[in-house]
């Protein structure tokens, strides 16, 4: 019983990480329908940004989010405007371009750091919290809290504000949204910016947990796509609960089946969901219907 509880706690904390990485991708993939392979690299940039702030100004990575998140918002806007928007009618070329961005980001960071691994230390992150017999690391708990807060904030933003409403309208039917006077291009631009900013938030908060390396984004990107499709496109709840489900499945499979197979198991679950219910668990029916050609 204790073991099960332990596994569940580990799974929840892991799910927080997956959810935090996926929540921005869910916006980008769900609203603009770009398969953004470079999303993991945006998370990586967020991590290195936090390291830069930590090493030059001595600030904790949690304070660094105040700098990293706006910076990633700007990077996202620039990327969308210069690279992705011109390719809007060419979806396969868009995938290709995001892959090129992935290669560039990874190797620019590699060239600057010369492959040296960095780590960010933080007094708060290293503390542990006793929860019954289980000791929970503070840094992971903060992530779970942060993804919960981010999910609620994003949900309120999408439901309550005009901009949020226009994002939802564009998700449902971009033709109709355009006819209603919504500036679809500007909505996409801002959505990509917010998605990138959330990737930056994820990066900064993850930086105390991982040793930083240029290729670290690759650890997150496939999981993030699985979470997004599993949870449901354009659904904040989908990214949140999808992340927790993937985290729990990974922890349970790792404990009860075989740690080496845990990834295959959640990928198979993901494939099964994709085939049986392409909309995802929380997605709107029909959201997956937009193929490459209808995107223009």
């Amino acid at each position, binding site marked *: 019983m204790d073991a099960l509880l332990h596994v569940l706690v580990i799974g929840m904390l892991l799910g927080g990480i997956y959810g935090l990485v996926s929540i921005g991708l869910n916006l980008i993939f769900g609203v603009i329908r770009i398969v953004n392979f470079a999303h993991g690299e945006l998370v990586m940039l967020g991590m290195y940004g936090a390291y830069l702030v930590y090493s030059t100004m001595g600030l904790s990575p949690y304070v660094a989010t105040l700098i990293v998140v706006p910076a990633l918002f700007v990077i996202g806007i620039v990327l969308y405007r210069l690279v992705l928007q011109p390719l809007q009618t060419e979806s396969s070329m868009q995938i290709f371009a995001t*892959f*090129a961005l992935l*290669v560039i980001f990874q*190797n620019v960071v590699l060239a600057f750091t010369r492959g040296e691994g960095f780590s960010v230390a933080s007094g708060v992150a290293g503390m542990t919290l006793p929860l019954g017999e289980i000791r929970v690391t503070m840094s992971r708990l903060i992530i779970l809290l942060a993804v919960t807060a981010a999910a609620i904030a994003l949900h309120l933003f999408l439901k309550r504000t005009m901009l949020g409403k226009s994002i939802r309208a564009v998700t449902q039917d971009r033709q109709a949204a355009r006819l209603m006077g919504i500036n679809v291009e500007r909505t996409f631009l801002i959505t990509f910016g917010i998605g990138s900013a959330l990737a930056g938030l994820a990066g900064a908060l993850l930086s105390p947990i991982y040793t930083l390396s240029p290729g670290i984004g690759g650890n997150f990107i496939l999981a993030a796509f699985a979470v997004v499709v599993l949870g449901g496109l354009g659904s904040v709840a989908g990214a949140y609960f999808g992340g927790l489900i993937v985290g729990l499945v990974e922890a349970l499979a790792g404990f009860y089946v075989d740690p080496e197979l845990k990834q295959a198991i959640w990928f198979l679950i993901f494939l099964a969901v994709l085939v049986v219910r392409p909309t995802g668990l929380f997605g709107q029916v029909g959201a997956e219907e937009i193929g490459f050609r209808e995107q223009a």
Partner: protein
Amino acid sequence: MKSVGTPLASPRPTETPAQALIPSWHRVAWSYAGGLAIALVPLLLLSADRFWLNILTYTYLFAGLAAAWNVLAGFGGQFSLGHGVFFAIGAYATGLLFMKWGVSPWLAILPAALASALIGSLIFLPTFRLKGSFFAIATLAFNEVALVFANYFESVTGGPRGIQIPFRAGIANMIFADPRGYALLMFGFMALALAVALVLRRSRLGYYLLAVREDEDAARAAGISVVRVKLRATALSAALTAIGGGLFAMYVRTIDPPTLFSLPDIGVKFALLSLIGGIGTVIGPVLGAFLIVPTESYLRALLGGSVPGLHLILMGSLMLLAALFMRRGVAGAVDALLERWRHRPRSGR
């Protein structure tokens, strides 16, 4: 004065004139032979140089592999990122048949191709209802599941360390003491893949595939069995990719999961080469391979030692520029130029 296209001119630059006016078999055969002869020239010029011979061998191999990918993704519009699975099936089946039962690789690639076609049809079948990027992500997931399994079932695959094929030179073993043998082998594979693409492009199945790519609902309404067409294209594409995987295994003589399931070097590479050359055209994937593979290898050798990652920064930038300024690939850009030349203003000459 700017040239004005006639109303009959194709608005899409990838639609080669060949598609508007079906050329005779005679003409196709001659351009096929001519193209292969041109592709053979660098082999004659460079065969003394081990460095370039190795690059050329990879270029031929990846030209064939990209052409195989293009059968399903280019003609049929099914943007697969899971072709690494077929590549790996070919490599493992050929290598295991050779190592465990001493089957000559020349024979072993046939069951390897068959197995790949069967498994490919089976695993892709449930994903055919997915469209566009969803299909791409689902097939990407196949690649990852296969990677985990290949690492896990160590008794069959040799696990993460892989299988080593000892160097026992001999034509029956498909192991050549003279590296030119491998270059010719890969050249033959490219010729095979191109021939399949050419025949397919003019066959009934080829036209069905184009119809499915352009508009699935319309194709179904016209009486095409969409699932059957996708299945046949998958089987063909998977079989060809597996042959390429088998040849690759015999060339490098190491079969290990990190190499076979690598996304940048295998699974996504086929797509990158085809996109840069011109997706959906017969010649595009080959053009892409001939541009990218040598450039990448050369830059790696030139810059790899100085600043880590510099050659990949350059490659990534080149790919980005190609995506932005040659949306229909090299083949599309050439077609657009030809089209402009054909409709050049005659007045004032």
